[in-house]
């Protein structure tokens, strides 16, 4: 049965929680922990990530090889991919009354596309089919932190992650740093315009997690758990 407390933000019975921030800001770890916590408290939880489908991933690879991709096609391909994910994965659980946790949402596209020079209003219009989240947590960290974490994890910085297509620098690490700086500036702008909840992500995991749980309690006050649905229904 569908709960009778639709969200005032988007009108669906579920709740939409978004975690945004630079790579290495710790948002994925925190999102997972929040998911566990909500599940343990009896809520129905659905978790989604900003993963490219095979279709888009392979197209981007091909386009890159042939030198075909531009800021515009790159942006539109990601929008196509997100639309597919939204219509298949995000919307159904939202309508079914789940707490949908998104590790990255449309804001990731907004900051990346803006950093590549796309018109922000154009990008925003494209994604206007996606509802505004009930809450967006923005994990704010200095660029240096994401770079340090990247180096510490010894994972290779990918071409697009470093914004190498923009020609900001020949060196991958330097390009990464500059590109992440651009992304951060965009995120900081959105933080105000889109009412993000700022999370100081420079702290250890536990205090951040405690803050998130505190922030979420009022949002879930009259939101039914599976248990209450069975008993009341």
């Amino acid at each position, binding site marked *: 049965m569908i709960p009778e407390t639709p969200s005032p933000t988007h009108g669906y019975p579920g709740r939409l929680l978004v975690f945004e921030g630079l790579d290495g800001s710790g948002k994925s770890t925190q999102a997972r922990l929040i998911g566990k916590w909500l599940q343990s408290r009896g809520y129905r939880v659905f978790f989604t990530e900003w993963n490219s489908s095979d279709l888009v991933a392979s197209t981007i690879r091909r386009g890159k090889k042939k030198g075909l991709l531009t800021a515009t096609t790159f942006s539109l391909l990601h929008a196509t991919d997100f639309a597919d994910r*939204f219509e298949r994965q995000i919307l159904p659980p939202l309508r079914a009354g789940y707490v949908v946790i998104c590790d990255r949402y449309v804001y990731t596209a907004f900051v990346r596309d803006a950093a590549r020079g796309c018109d922000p209003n154009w990008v925003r219009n494209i994604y206007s089919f996606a509802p505004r989240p009930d809450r967006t947590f923005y994990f704010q960290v200095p660029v240096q932190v994401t770079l340090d974490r990247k180096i510490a994890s010894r994972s290779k910085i990918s071409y697009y992650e470093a914004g190498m297509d923009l020609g900001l620098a020949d060196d991958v690490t330097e390009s990464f740093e500059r590109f992440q700086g651009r992304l951060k500036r965009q995120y900081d702008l959105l933080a105000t315009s889109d009412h993000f909840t700022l999370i100081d992500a420079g702290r250890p995991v536990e205090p951040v997690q405690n803050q998130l749980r505190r922030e979420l309690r009022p949002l879930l006050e009259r939101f039914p758990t599976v248990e209450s649905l069975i008993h009341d229904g």
Partner: protein
Amino acid sequence: MTGNTYGTPLPGMPKHRLTGRLIVVEGADGSGRTTEVGMLKEWLEVQGHAVVDTGLRRSTLVSEQIDQAKQGHTLAPTTMALFYAVDFADQLENKIIPAMSAGSTVLADRYIYTLMARAIARGASREWAQELYQFALVPDLVVFLEARTDILLHRAIMKYGSLDYWESGMDLSLSPDRFDSFFLYQDRLRKEFEWMAKPYGFHFIDANRHPDTVHSDVKRIVAPLYLKPSDRASRGRKAAAAPVPTSRAPSTAPA
């Protein structure tokens, strides 16, 4: 053509003037559009103009993927509309603009208008579709071949022996009957083309007639595009030679 776009140009748009021309031929399946594009190309080439043709689903980047997706009928409307936008943007940047920079005429067998009409017929708002395609180049001429739905039906059956799933809008569930669905869907598209006609400057051609007659009419409206500025001046067509502001039609488009 000066390289005007409907709205904010794409990042990386060339700053120089595009010397080539962009001619768009629009019309439903069965309106004789492809036949006319072929005849027009031949005629322009005979006159000594280099012609590059383009159309929907012909990009190097995603045309195959769109074909695959259409086979499975699995993509939701917004996803499909955006996928087509990738295809269009890729052709615009990698084919249309380079060809026009080199002075060629680009002959487009369908353009953003069909893509917009299809998206809107599937639930997108007009504003969303217009804004999505605001980066498109404003063509020098948009020829719209208009044929009655019963003629479209007749030609589709003559050609394929049946009605195409997508051209009948079967994905919209307007009617389980393909014949009924075809009429309902074509009506919806027609309604969208109607409001576009003015802001996007369509030149309607009666396509219920023989292809040769249609072609004569099309040639008559295409020919002035190739007059030299001096010819234009002598014919009093000042407007055609005057510089045009960067943004055109949509400012007058209905909200």
